[in-house]
């Protein structure tokens, strides 16, 4: 196979993998928007908060240690234990559920019936509040994320040697794929299947869909809005944790993680704000589109660094023809 074609395939494949990572972030937005009509600006910060909490629990870090030491003049930083990754993930999920309850109880319960823009503003406030709390709880330093199922079975990093070798033998040029991206793709697939099954086949899932369709009607048949919104924010928190793990494994867990939300916006514009498959397909299209554009046009002719703006341009192009996004619901309001 010609070398240029193999390179194009390599870029395409890596674009797909990058798209999966974008989709992981976008999923959290979709879950909350679908059920409550809230565009959750804090989704990126939730990923950061979840990843920081996971590492903090894993390393036995004392939350709010800096604050405690400043007030009481103590010198405590660590509990002195190390928590297994699986237990740490479970505990982080509990923290995210508690956060979902708190957000619902103290913020959105008081804003029921308010204009969407007010709800959006509330999520902006929530984002800054959570960023500050995360800083106070776990500190601002960059933390190394190491998630291991067992001794020696950790999240893999680096080139998949088998795939590189196989493609080299077949085409004379090896194709690079990152092991972490492969794992992220599998995890994303399992997550999406799990979410769809949950929505289709469980009582809570059906209630969630009912609320998404018409929350007044859902209320009238006895569905608890409070419970559903806590459930949805918890699910979004879980998705944020998964996204935080995958992105945090690449760069270490640090405050820039909250900026991954920027990568999700074009995905949402393209895939629609209300569709789980839309988030996945949108992510893949954005990932492949931006990478191929950079490879074929951006780097050779435009000086590179085209991915950020191209993703938005691609999404805008789709919006011109389908304002609700590829899979979004077309809302017709009768007047």
């Amino acid at each position: 196979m010609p070398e240029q074609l193999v390179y194009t395939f390599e870029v395409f494949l890596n674009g797909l993998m990058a798209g999966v990572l974008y989709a992981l972030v976008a999923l959290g937005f979709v879950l909350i928007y679908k059920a409550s009509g809230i565009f959750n600006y804090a989704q990126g910060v939730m990923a950061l908060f979840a990843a920081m909490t996971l590492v903090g629990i894993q390393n036995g870090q004392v939350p709010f240690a800096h604050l405690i030491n400043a007030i009481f003049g103590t010198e405590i930083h660590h509990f002195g234990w190390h928590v297994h990754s699986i237990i740490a993930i479970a505990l982080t999920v509990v923290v995210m559920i508690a956060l979902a309850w708190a957000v619902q109880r103290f913020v959105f319960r008081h804003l029921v019936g308010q204009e969407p823009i007010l709800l959006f503003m509330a999520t902006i406030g929530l984002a800054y509040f959570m960023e500050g709390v995360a800083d106070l709880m776990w500190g601002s330093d960059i933390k190394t994320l190491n998630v291991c199922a067992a001794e020696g079975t950790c999240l893999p990093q680096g080139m998949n040697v088998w795939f590189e070798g196989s493609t080299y033998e077949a085409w004379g040029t090896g194709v690079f794929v990152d092991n972490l991206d492969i794992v992220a793709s599998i995890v994303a697939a399992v997550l999406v299947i799990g979410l769809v099954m949950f929505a289709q086949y469980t009582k809570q899932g059906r209630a969630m869909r009912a609320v998404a369709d018409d929350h007044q009607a859902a209320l009238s048949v006895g569905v608890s809005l409070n419970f559903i919104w806590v459930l949805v924010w918890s699910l979004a928190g879980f998705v944020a944790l998964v996204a935080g793990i995958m992105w945090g494994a690449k760069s270490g867990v640090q405050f820039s993680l909250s900026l991954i939300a920027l990568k999700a916006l074009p995905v949402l514009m393209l895939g629609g704000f209300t569709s789980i498959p839309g988030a996945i397909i949108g992510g893949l299209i954005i990932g492949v589109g931006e990478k191929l554009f950079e490879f074929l046009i951006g780097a050779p002719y435009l000086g590179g660094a085209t991915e950020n703006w191209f993703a938005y341009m691609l999404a805008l192009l789709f919006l011109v023809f389908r304002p609700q996004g590829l899979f979004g619901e077309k809302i017709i309001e009768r007047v």
Partner: protein
Amino acid sequence: MKYRLGTYAVAAMMAASPVMADLVFPSLSYRTGPYAAGGIPFADGYADYFTLLNERDGGIGGVEARVLECETGYNTEKGVECYESTKGEGALVYQPLSTGITYQLIPKATADDIPIHSMGYGRTSAANGDVFSHVFNYPGNYWHGASGVINYLLEAHNGDLNGKKIALVYHNSAYGKEPIRTLEELAKKHGFELSLLPVDHPGQEQKSQWLQIRREKPDNVVMWGWGVMNQVAIQEAANIRYPMDQFIGVWWSGAQHDVLPAGDAANGYKAITFHAVGSDYPLFDDIKTHVVDKGKAAGAGDQIGTVLYNRGIYAAMLAAEAAKDAQAATGNAEITAGDMRDAMENLNITEERMAGLGMPGFGPSFQVSCENHGGPGLVGVAQWDAGAKTWSLISELSAPDMDVIQPLIAEDSAAFAAENNIEGNCS
């Protein structure tokens, strides 16, 4: 009653009067936001050095030093706000800690007669003191750094870079673009092929750039990164199995937190520096005794000897030494920003002086002059040992190629002078 009223009046006067007994050193720090991991150790080092002077020596020339921190979040607008809100406190010198903020402050600080010290960042051509009267970027700037990288690579390739491929992975911002001009000139001079790979802020996703590097197989990769871009680049380099010892970063891409997330895969990564690494200096013992052990450290006291903490210490030391010189020159313990500027322009850092401060060989010896605010620009190279988790200097601080750099400084500063009708400060 009269006595009580008198007491209140004195108390009110004391509260209302400006505090004249302090030497104020504003610190435009960033302890929050995406770049906090780099901002905190620098700010801690800067603050701890002045705390040491206060605790151990009773201040500078008997006057207490006061570090006035203002949080910028590495945001240019907030940086300018910080400048405006602190300059009235008697600020002696500003460390903007951001190239963007530095650019914005150059005209303001010049008009206010307050010096700026942008050490290893900012506007490179500000090294020309004839044009930039209030800006100092000693002991080194980006163009010195770019030349230092190429000098090191020349050494590594037995003095011949002809036909070699060098890729520059850079933060797609004013900061990241600073070395390009110099590297292009050096590419012409030495015959190497330079490819430019910009990475957009924040740099969390760099797959395209590293796939390009994998395809083009450059002999060396140079990085001009900051924040998360550094950690991701080092991880991506490891992912594509790019030889880590052929990968070299600027001094803002060579701290502990840049390499630790990649673990063992970062072993052998290199970065240039303009000061020493590690904590094997008598000064650090003093900091431990007089600052950390007394519970007066700006942070947890666990950053001593890290790259950016040391840089903060070094910046504070240079500011404090200039303040001492200003006191000596004016005969006043309480100096003004104008006195400080004059002292910075005549600053003479000798090996003996550094040794006396407990920092022998920590940085280069240099003499600032009206024409040269940039210092000698000596550049060394440090390498990361992932096993020991330490940086070690692998080359001495050595001189950059001023034959290439000086005309660039002259050209850029002349353009600034023409735009701003500056006739020259040194004549």
